[in-house]
Structures are given as C-alpha cells and as structure tokens.
C-alpha cells in the first residue's frame, strides 16, 4: 500500500527539490507507520493474557537480565551460577551470549536516567517488538541498496514488519536472542552491501562493529561468518575482484574477528574452529589475488602472468592442505555438532540425540513455509530471478543468501528465521517491479521506436562476438528486448486491483496467524469452554508458585531439561539440568533416573541430593506436550551413556508399539516416569475406567505404587505433578520393605542380614 501512494506520482509536488523533500517526508511517515504496525501486531499476547515472559529460554534470559541489573556488569561477566546443574553449577557469564541482556540493561539504565523507572520485566517483554520495528527499517535500507525502485524498500519493510516467519520469534514476551539478532543480521548485511558497493573502510568498519554485536547476541552469527566469505569467494570466481571488495572484506574480517573474540563464550573459536575457517581462507585468498592483480599491472609479459597464476593456485592448494592438516591433527576443532548436523542431516540423530530431540530442530514441511510466508513464498523465486537481470555484486549476494537460507530453513524449522529477511527483500523486489510497471499513468505511443533499455549487448545481433557466445546470450532471455510499457488502462487497473487484493489477503493471513499460532505464552494455556468463552489454564505458574512458597530455598528439583529454565526463573529453585544442555552426561543421568526402576533411581536421586521431582502430565486434559510423550527421548539419551542399563527396545511391546495401557512392557510400567505420571490417577475415575486422553488409552485397573517418593503437589488440571523424595528409612529398611510393613504384609524372611546400608555398590 505504501507502494501505491509512492507509485502514483502526481506531478504537483513530486518534482524538483520540493518533490524530493515531500518524498522523503512521506517515506519517513510510512516507515514509522510500518514500525508501529510491526509493534502492534506483536502485542496480542500482552493484551490477551498479561505482560509475561514466554516459553522456556526467555525465562533464563530474563533471570540473567535481572542478575545483570541487580549486580552490575562485571559481576554478570564473572557469574558462576550454583543454582543450576546441581551439583556441578554453570559458569554462566562465560557460556552465554550476553548481547540481549546487556541491551536490556542499557535500555533500563538509560530510561532511569531519563527519570522513567520502568520495571525490567516490561523492558524484557517489549524488547522484541521494539526491535522488530528496527528490523523493518534495516530491511528498508537493505532493499533500497538492491534496486532503484523507490517502492521496493518500503514494501520489504512492510513485509518484514508483519510476516509471521519473523513474528513467530519476536512477539511480546518472547525474550530470546533472536529478538535482537534478526535486526543485527539484516543491518550487518546492509552495511556489508554498502561497504562492497562503495569500497569504504568506514562502512566495513561499521559492518564489523555490528557483526561483533551480533556475535555477542546469537549463536547464529556463524551464518554471517560463512555467508560474507562465500559472497566474496563467488565474486572472485566470477572474475569480479576489485579493490572495493578487497578493502571491505579485509577490514570486516580483521575488525570483526577481533570484535567477536571479545565475547568470552566465543573466545578463540574464530581462529580455532572449522566453522570459521572459510572466512580465514577467503581472507588469505584475497591477499593472493590482490597481490597477483598488483603484479599484473606491473608486468606486461604474458608468460609471466601464466606462471604467476600457477603460483597462486599452488599456494592456495598448499594453504588448503595446511588447514586440513591442522584440522586432522586437532589444532583446529572440527565442525561443531549443531553446525555439522545441518549438512549431514542424519548425523544428529545418530550421534547427538539431544539436538535431534528438540522440536525446533526438526525438518520443515511445506505447509510451514506457506504458513509463515504466505504469498511471499511464490514471489520469492520471481524476485531472485529478477536479480539475475543486472546481476551486480549485491545481487549475487541475494542469490547466494536465498539458496543457502532456503536449504537451512528446509533442514531446521527454527532457521526459517534466517530465510524470512531475504524472502521479504526478494518478494518486495518482484512486487515493486510489477507495481512500477502497472501503476504508471502515461501510455506508450503505439508503434513508436522502442527505447534502448540501457543494455547495449541485447541490442541487435552480435556480429563481432564468438558464434557460441552469441548462441547463448549473456543476459536473461526475458529481458533481451527493450521495455515498452503497458498500453491499456484495463490491464493496468485489473493487475493493480488483483495485487492489491493479494496484499490485503496477506495482511489478513499474517494477522490471523499471529493471533492464533504465535501469541500463546505456552506458560499459560488458553482453551475454549463450550459456550465459546476463553478459559485460562494456569497449571504451570500454579505449580511453580507452590514450589516457591512451600519448599526450602535450596531444595533441588529434578525434572526433564525442558523445564529447567522455568523452574529457575519462576520457582527460583536449583535444578539438575536445564535448557542449556551443556552436559549431556548429566542429562542422561536424569534420563536414567526417570526411565529406571525405583530401586535404581532412588540412589541416583540421593546422590544428586534431589528433594523434589517435577513432571508434566497431560493425560487428564489431553495436553500432548507432556513427559510421557517425551519419554522416549529420555530413554534414548540415557541409552547413549548406559547402553547396558537402559534399552529403548524394552519400552516397546513385542509388536513394536509404545503403549501405556495394560499391555505396556514391564520396563515401562516399572519406570519411575510411568509411575509418577499415573500414580493415583485411577482414583479420579470409576473403578477400571481410567483413561489417558492424550494417548487415547485405557489404563490398568490397578494403578502404580510408589515407595521411594511421595506425592507432594498436583496442579488443578494435573499438568504438573511434584513428588517429594523420601528420606532414608529410620529403621534402615528399604522403602519397599517399609511400604510392605505399613500395608501389613508379612515380612519375607531374607536369608542373610545385610550390613550397614550403602547407597550403591559399584
């Protein structure tokens, strides 16, 4: 719509000096409006629920931000957190990307300086929408560099502002690294394009600066680290080496690498890990090519140049071999697992189940693309095609980015986020092209001599060039003849009308998707009552609040890692494992405790000083994201460490089914997770009628019995169940014996009297 107001240039005040000013003012107003729309469409969750932090990871970021604000920057930098990963603790300050927290902290202090004391929680909640406005602006800048059309940038900004692919990670309350990282990604790319275009050290320096900011904010910076060298490399291969490229790349690489090494979590990775070697390799290659180009200008001899070219090849091969040697010998770390699994898609499933277990690391089915991008998904290829028309250096960047990001988004759902900016840019280029053609009032004169479209090679048959080269033209086939224009008003109005309708549909789609799919905090669930009114299911917060009020400050809570950050953030209790997943063995230990019999689990829990066990159970409500459905991943991860004690096979029936009802395997029925989930559950139903609504299974008439744990709390809808780990028996009996005694069973005569009780005999 921005384009329409732009395109229908009435001659009054759109010409001359005043015209430029008017256009600039209009553009500013439109951009501010777009930013406002971007912010507004992200506020659904705040209006519907409340100003609350969403999901899982944001809770950690929020907790870290509070720590930063309360204890100052240097304490935050050196933060050792003994309330997670009990008993190991975590060197949090050195193992996080601090960009997000520092940004919020700065905003907080600036606002206080301006006598606007705003709660840090509100800053955290609203940070992502605020930055989405900036992202729209950055997209405008990036697109304006790509095309001469004045409307393309504004269209791209509007697309970026409301497309669900980006909203999915930036609604209010989604306080995650991506909230600021996408802005930094787009803005870094803009600065890079600017630097390459102008060959200016200043722009490249800014690019390095924002690259450093990006590194401090999100692990996805590796995408930039590899995309910029790839762009430079492709340009060299196309024979487009220029001093501009040399200046911008070397400046960016030198300053950017130094900047990235200031982040403790990144440290020496830029010179030691394979992920970053492409950037270093291209840096070296550029020096070689630059040297050769210089020598070429000094030496006229053709033979010498051939020799030199050979020399360059040899040096390049030798340097490459040297890198390979360093990698093999271990000086350079191999590809990190997360990054490697993008190329070898079967890798994670075999070697790193913890990565494969995360739902956002799954491959993307086509409906997800359409859901997130709607009509942009088919405008996108058209826009990329149009980049081939003039194919300047910056268009090469678009093409590379598009192909790579499409691949990544196809492999991993969450990387849709890196694809979205380029889709918006390319789609806006395609659409603005159409609007620019069909929204012109003046008609071409019929039969007039067509004007040359500024492409001399396309003009007339090429007689001088090679036969072969003329058979295969250098330009695109569709742009060989010059532009004439559209003759009839009917065509113009029909096409304009149609595309306006599509754009309106796009806005509706985006609003609908945002409102329905991406605005749920997932901490609070909403359901509809039969009369259509909204019912809030608040079990999570109920349970975390219970923990906060009724347990000791240092009571350790064991749960699956998904809930670690929330327990730390909302209940403020130490956890064994959390979403940071830095220690696979520790997670496997929890998995083993959950998937083993009580006799095995109890010593594990005692050794880790567990006081409470928290599980999520959706059987009553039909909430499918519960622990029984995640259980197989616990088993798999535990099996990775203890293949002899935990076996995935034992949790499947003889026919290979994963069941929870009467026919569940004994291992399943005896596992701690199963027992905790269904303990006392059949008391809710008439005898023998217990029903699991998630898995649609009828449960055994006799419910499981627990001897080493006791039920401490169950939330309103049974979503969260908390168990207390019993202390050792006062009389030195095992808990099973004590339980049998309580029930009045006769004690079995055991042949030998055991010595002092020990926890585990290894």
């Amino acid at each position, binding site marked *: 719509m921005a384009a329409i107001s732009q395109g229908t240039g009435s001659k009054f005040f759109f010409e001359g000096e005043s015209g430029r000013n008017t256009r600039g003012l209009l553009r500013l107003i439109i951009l501010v409006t777009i930013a406002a729309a971007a912010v507004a469409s992200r506020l659904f969750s705040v209006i519907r629920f409340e100003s609350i932090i969403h999901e899982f990871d944001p809770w950690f970021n929020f907790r870290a931000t509070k720590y930063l604000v309360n204890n100052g920057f240097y304490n935050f930098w050196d933060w050792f957190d003994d309330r997670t990963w009990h008993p190991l603790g975590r060197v949090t300050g050195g193992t996080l990307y601090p960009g997000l927290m520092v940004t919020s902290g700065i905003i907080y202090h600036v606002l206080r300086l301006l006598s606007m004391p705003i709660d840090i929680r509100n800053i955290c909640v609203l940070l992502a929408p605020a930055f989405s406005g900036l992202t729209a602006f950055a997209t405008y800048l990036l697109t304006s560099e790509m095309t001469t059309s004045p409307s393309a940038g504004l269209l791209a900004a509007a697309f970026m502002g409301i497309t669900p692919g980006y909203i999915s990670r930036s609604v209010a309350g989604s306080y995650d690294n991506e909230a600021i990282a996408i802005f930094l990604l787009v803005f870094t790319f803009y600065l890079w394009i600017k630097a390459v275009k102008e060959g200016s050290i200043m722009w490249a320096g800014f690019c390095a600066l924002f690259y450093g900011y990006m590194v401090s904010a999100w692990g996805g910076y590796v995408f930039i680290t590899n995309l910029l060298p790839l762009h430079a490399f492709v340009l060299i291969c196309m024979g487009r080496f220029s001093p501009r490229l040399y200046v911008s790349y070397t400046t960016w690489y030198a300053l950017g690498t130094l900047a990235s090494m200031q982040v403790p979590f990144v440290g020496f990775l830029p010179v030691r890990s394979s992920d970053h070697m492409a950037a270093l390799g291209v840096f070296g290659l550029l020096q070689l090519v630059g040297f050769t180009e210089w020598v070429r200008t000094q030496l006229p001899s053709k033979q010498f140049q051939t020799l030199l070219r050979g020399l360059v090849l040899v040096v390049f091969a030798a340097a490459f071999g040297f890198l390979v040697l360093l990698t093999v010998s271990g000086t350079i770390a191999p590809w990190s697992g997360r990054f490697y699994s993008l190329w070898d*898609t*079967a890798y994670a499933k075999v070697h790193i189940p913890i990565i494969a277990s995360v739902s956002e690391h799954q*491959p*993307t*089915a*086509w*409906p*997800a*693309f*359409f*859901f997130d991008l709607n*009509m942009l*998904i*088919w*405008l*996108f*290829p*058209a826009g*990329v*095609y*149009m980049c*081939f*028309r003039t194919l300047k250096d910056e268009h090469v960047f678009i*093409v590379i980015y*598009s*192909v790579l990001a*499409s*691949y990544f988004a*196809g*492999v991993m759902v969450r990387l849709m986020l890196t694809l979205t900016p380029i889709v918006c840019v390319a789609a806006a280029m*395609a659409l603005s*092209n*159409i609007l620019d*053609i069909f929204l012109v009032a003046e008609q071409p004169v019929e*039969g007039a001599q*067509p004007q040359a479209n500024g492409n001399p090679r396309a003009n007339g048959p090429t007689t001088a060039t090679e036969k*072969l080269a003329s058979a*295969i*033209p*250098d*330009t*695109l*086939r*569709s742009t060989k*003849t*010059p*532009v*004439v224009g*559209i*003759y*009839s008003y*009917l*065509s113009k109005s*029909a*096409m304009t009308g*149609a595309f306006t309708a599509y754009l309106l549909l796009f806005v*509706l789609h985006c609003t*609908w998707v945002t409102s329905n799919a991406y605005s749920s905090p997932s901490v609070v669930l909403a359901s509809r009552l039969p009369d259509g009114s909204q019912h809030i299911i608040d079990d999570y917060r109920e349970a975390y609040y219970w923990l906060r009020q009724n347990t000791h400050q240092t009571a350790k809570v064991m749960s699956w890692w998904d809930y670690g950050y929330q327990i730390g953030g909302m209940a403020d209790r130490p956890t064994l494992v959390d979403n940071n997943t830095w220690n696979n063995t520790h997670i496997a230990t929890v998995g083993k405790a959950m998937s083993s019999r009580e006799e095995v689990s109890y010593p594990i829990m005692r050794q880790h000083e567990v006081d409470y066990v928290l599980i999520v159970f959706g059987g009553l409500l039909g909430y499918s994201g519960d622990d029984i459905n995640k259980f197989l991943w616990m088993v798999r991860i535990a099996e990775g460490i203890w293949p*002899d004690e935990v076996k995935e*096979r034992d949790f499947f029936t003889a026919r290979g089914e994963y069941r929870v009802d009467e026919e569940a395997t004994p291992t399943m029925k005896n596992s701690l997770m199963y027992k905790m989930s269904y303990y006392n559950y059949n008391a809710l139903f008439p005898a023998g009628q217990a029903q699991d609504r998630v898995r649609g299974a009828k449960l055994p008439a006799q419910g499981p019995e627990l001897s080493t744990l006791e039920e401490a709390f169950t939330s309103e809808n049974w979503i969260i169940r908390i168990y207390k780990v019993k202390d050792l028996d006062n009389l030195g009996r095992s808990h099973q014996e004590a339980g049998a005694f309580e029930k009045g069973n006769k004690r079995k005569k055991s042949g030998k009297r055991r010595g002092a009780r020990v926890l585990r005999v290894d």
Partner: protein
Amino acid sequence: MRIPGILAAALLPLTALAAKKSTGDRFNDYHSKQVSTLASIKIDDVSYGEMTKAPRDYAVAVLLTALDARFGCALCHEFQPEWELLAKSWTKGDKKGESRLVYATLDFADGKQTFQSVGKRTLSSPVLLVFQPTVGPNAKPDGAPNRFDFVTGTDKAEPIHAWISRHLPDSPHPPLVRPINYVKYAVTTTAVLGGVTFLSVAWPYLLPVIQNRNLWAAISLITILLFTSGHMFNHIRKVPYVAGDGKGGLSYFASGFQNQFGLETQIVAAMYGILAFATISLALKVPRMTDPRAQQIAVFVWGGIILGMYSFLLSVFRIKNGGYPFFLPPF
C-alpha cells in the same frame, strides 16, 4: 536367558568323558583353527553345546543367523561380511590368543534346536551371544550369555566390536581393520584424471555455458523451489511418495500440518514455480510486448493463471490446516 545355561548344564554329564580333556586344549584347538582359516568357526547344534559347555576359560561370541534364501533375512546377509571381517581382524590382531575369544557362526539350517533354546523365533535379524569364561582370571559367575539383538538395524562391524569389547573389559581388544579398497582408489584416481582431462579439453566450449546467466538462474530457482516445498523433509523423514486413500484411489495430500508425501511436495513446487513464472512474465515480458492487443491478452492470461493457481494453493492449504479461514474465488 537362563535356558542356555541350563542346557549347557544338562549336557555336562553327557560329555563327562570328553571333559577329561583340559579346557585349555579346547581353546587352543578352536584358536588354531581360527588362525589358519582367518574366519569364524561354522558350528552346528552339537558343536555349539561342545563349545559353550560350562567349565571354560575362554569367551565365545556366537552369531545366530539365517543365511538361507528361504528365510529372507536381509540383515543377516548384510551383516555376514562385516562379521567375518570382525572375526578376521580380531584373530589377526590376536594370534597368540591372549584375548581368549572364539568367533563362531551358527546358521539356522544347522542349529534349529539352539535357536529354540535361546528363544529366537523370528528369523528376520541375526542375534549375537557372548559367553563369558566361567573359570580362569576373567571368569564371570553368571552363566547366562550377553545378547545383542540386531533390531535397530545395525549392520556395521564397529558398534559390534565396541559392544564385544565392552563385555570383555579385561582382555586385549585387537582393533578392527578394514581392508583398503584398492578398486575404489583406482576408480577415483581414474575418474579424477579423466575429469581433469575432459575439462582441459572442453574448457573453451564449457566456459560460455558456465558463464551463462540463464543457466545459473535456472539452477538457483530450481534449488529454491525444491527446498521451500519441503524436499529436505522428504529426504530426512523418508516419507512415502504417495499413499492410497483407503478406497482404492490415491491420496495426493497427506492429512495433517506436519505430514506430506513426496508427490505432494512436487505438486506444491510446481504451483510455486507456475506462480513465480507468471509473476516474472508480468513483470519482465509483458511490458516488452509491442503489440497492444497481444499485450492485453497476455496480461489477462498471466493474471488469470496467478489468480487460479493462488486460489488452488489456498484450497490445498485448507486441506492441510482445517481451521484456515481464507480463500480466493475459483476454488
């Protein structure tokens, strides 16, 4: 698991005479046989009992397999060369017999009773049993063998080597050595040299093709369409190409947001492709047409194609996502 132990115990009195021979001799016999053949020992029901009977100071790794084509055990055939490779490299690396491990293979045709006794009823996959020594320095009191079921589709020797090593922790573990595949190297070298030769000869002709923008545009667009229509999902999840709808017909679109068929993604890619092509035509080709009438027709044809395709795309999306409220007129 208890049964083989009982079986061995039951066999014990019968073989009392044979047991006069010291068990060290037994191992030496097996080992020398293995060293000379560099393969696992083929056994049957009788020699199985002989080999695994109770007082033994050596370990036995028996692979129960069904190689006869009648049983149709694909995994058995896949794993058999790997098993022989493992036996060979273990024996080669342990010529003196320090690990005291015998590799044996029992085919179903020769050992029906043993199969029954270990409770193996299906023949779709092999089973590996490792019997620990019962006497000697590394003896394990528990008589039941360790069992490895090939259910997860393991068909490589490395994990099996690791598994066996884990169960025999105190004895030496000769490394698994894969023979160098000379043919592969030769083929690769020839191919590389041939490729270099071909390139150097054909370079003048190839260069204009490589530098051709249309080619690169086509490649880029095809990759983008491939990836944005969910090809990687098909590749990773190995979805079926197409499925029946239960009424004898074909179901082209899988139900559910997180599901898709191979054909479905191709249809979607084709739709995206048509829509993109129509957009390109409208943006680049139509304004270059000099005849007003032809141009008007072209505008309406391409505009109609976009409308129809987009409307169809939305209707397909409504199949995938039941609650989706938007549509465009024709479909």
